[in-house]
């Protein structure tokens, strides 16, 4: 094995320290405490776990955390009233509505009713358009985390060939925009791409975000390339005992690590960065709302 393992846990911890330092400065110098509101509708187990750990980390970095847990049968109008209140609440700088929402709620309508300035997930249609046109926006957390890791590893990304596999709205497309913003030559490959192996082989940077377990083998990777694995797939792992499962990414870690220059593991790679970037976005939103300089290194 030759590749440097990019330790997402350790890097995310460093990002959270930076966020925490900035929060301290905001409190001491300006008397402002950044606030993040998380709205959870229903009792989806995975969502509850996420929301709990988001809340915990928000408090750990010194920010105010507000959780709104709503009944699964909450009417859309009531949810919109709550979002409107949060939009107008001066102590709240970031609003996150945990997805997926129950089927009777119009996800698009709900997300687009969040004030774009408080949309720390970066899913509001205006933020999507602002990012798509290279303007200041709230950037979706997962691709922002990937970009931070790439910048940290390489310094400048300018002129590198980047291939993003997967064209999802929450990862693939914003990731491509961010890499273009850092002057990479960017190819977006997907399920319809012919000769995917050839396309991936020319990449200095590969970002895999398709949601197919271990789909990218080592012989698709150019020697020395950096591989960012966004996939989280659960596979049965009978070798660990009956009924046991394991998490794997979209790339076949062992064969890719033998060729790549650097690679993120799953778990412990991109995953931990997502919440760290949510906190970073909240601080950024807070600074913008108060007309203060944005925290360096925590935004695009």
């Amino acid at each position, binding site marked *: 094995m030759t590749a440097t393992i990019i330790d997402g846990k350790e890097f995310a911890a460093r990002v959270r320290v930076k966020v925490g330092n900035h929060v301290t400065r905001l409190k001491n110098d300006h008397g402002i405490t950044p606030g993040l509101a998380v709205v959870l509708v229903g009792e989806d187990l995975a969502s509850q776990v996420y929301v709990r750990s988001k809340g915990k980390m928000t408090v750990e970095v010194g920010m105010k955390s507000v959780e709104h847990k709503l009944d699964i049968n909450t009417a859309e109008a009531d949810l919109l009233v709550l979002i409107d209140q949060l939009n107008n609440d001066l102590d709240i700088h970031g609003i996150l509505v945990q997805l997926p929402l129950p089927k009777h709620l119009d996800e698009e309508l709900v997300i687009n009713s969040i004030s774009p300035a408080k949309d720390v997930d970066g899913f509001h*249609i205006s933020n*999507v358009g602002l990012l*798509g*046109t*290279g303007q200041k926006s709230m950037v979706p957390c997962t691709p922002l985390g990937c970009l931070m890791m790439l910048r940290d590893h390489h310094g400048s990304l300018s*002129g590198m060939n980047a291939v993003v596999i997967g064209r999802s709205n929450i990862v693939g497309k914003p990731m491509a925009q961010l890499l273009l913003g850092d002057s990479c030559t960017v190819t977006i490959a997907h399920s319809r*791409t012919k000769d995917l192996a050839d396309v991936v082989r020319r990449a200095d940077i590969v970002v895999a975000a398709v949601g197919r377990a271990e789909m990218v083998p080592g012989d698709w990777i150019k020697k020395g390339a950096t591989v960012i694995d966004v996939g989280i797939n659960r596979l049965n792992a009978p070798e660990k005992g009956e009924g046991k499962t394991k998490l794997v990414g979209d790339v076949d870690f062992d064969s890719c690590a033998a060729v790549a220059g650097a690679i993120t593991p799953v778990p412990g790679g991109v995953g931990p960065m997502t919440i760290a970037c949510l906190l970073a976005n909240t601080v950024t939103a807070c600074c913008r709302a108060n007309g203060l300089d944005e925290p360096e290194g925590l935004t695009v």
Partner: protein
Amino acid sequence: MNGAQIDHRLIDGKAVMARILDEVSAYFAEAAIGGRVARLVSVSIGDSPEVAVYVRNQARAAVKAGIRFDQELWSNEVSQEDCKQLIHEMNDDPEVLGIILQRPVPDHINVRSLQSAIHPLKDVEGMNPASIGNIVYSDMALAPCTAAAAVMLIKETGLDPKGLEVVMIGHSEIVGKPVALLLMAEGATVTVCHHMTRSLAIHSRRADVLVVAVGKAHLIGADMVKPGAVVIDIGINHVVGSDGKSQIVGDVDTDAVKEIAGWVTPVPGGVGPVTVAMLMRNAMAAHQRQKAVGWIE
């Protein structure tokens, strides 16, 4: 023109324009039966001969498309706030179907902030961030006109973008990025190149479809094109010809490239006319959307 003289390697933008305008005109003729259709308003800020040419072309196309077209010329001294106010009034005016904000604008005007002020349902140029956001999310109804024109011309060849390798040279906000998004949504594998790209020819040579929008006269020669490829030339460059006269050329060396490529769009007469036609088509899309949300009967 005699049929034998037509070079079928050149994609005729004017013919495509005429077809689109016919379609739009038929739509508005029918819409007018239900009552008078609102008008398009072109806003120019400050006097510029360059802008005047665009406006004239758009006005002509609007006539052919059966759309009323008003030209407003705001003073060079108008403030940002006043512009915003005027745009908000047009947003609220049921007599205004769509707003076109001509560029360039004077230096003291922040054009992006004004584009954001135009209501997305009246944004016939597809420049509001929300319109671009919709494109990113694969809702193509109101795409920026030049980008939409490029896609239209690719389809004119009869090729299905699905699975094709597209190389977009240039990553501007109004052309390069939206073209990439539109073609990605159509299932193409898209690579975006720009001034920091190393070995441009390596990328351009593997393209089934090459779209060029950089503003460098004749940047793309025959040696940069794969045999049989579709080449869409969005560049408009003023150069002095061998006869000493000023002429307009694209980013592609058309004469050389057409010997290699399967199809190439000429400049002028390729993407330009289709862009104007797409503006009228967007007016149609805006009308349909305004109807769908109940703004108009």
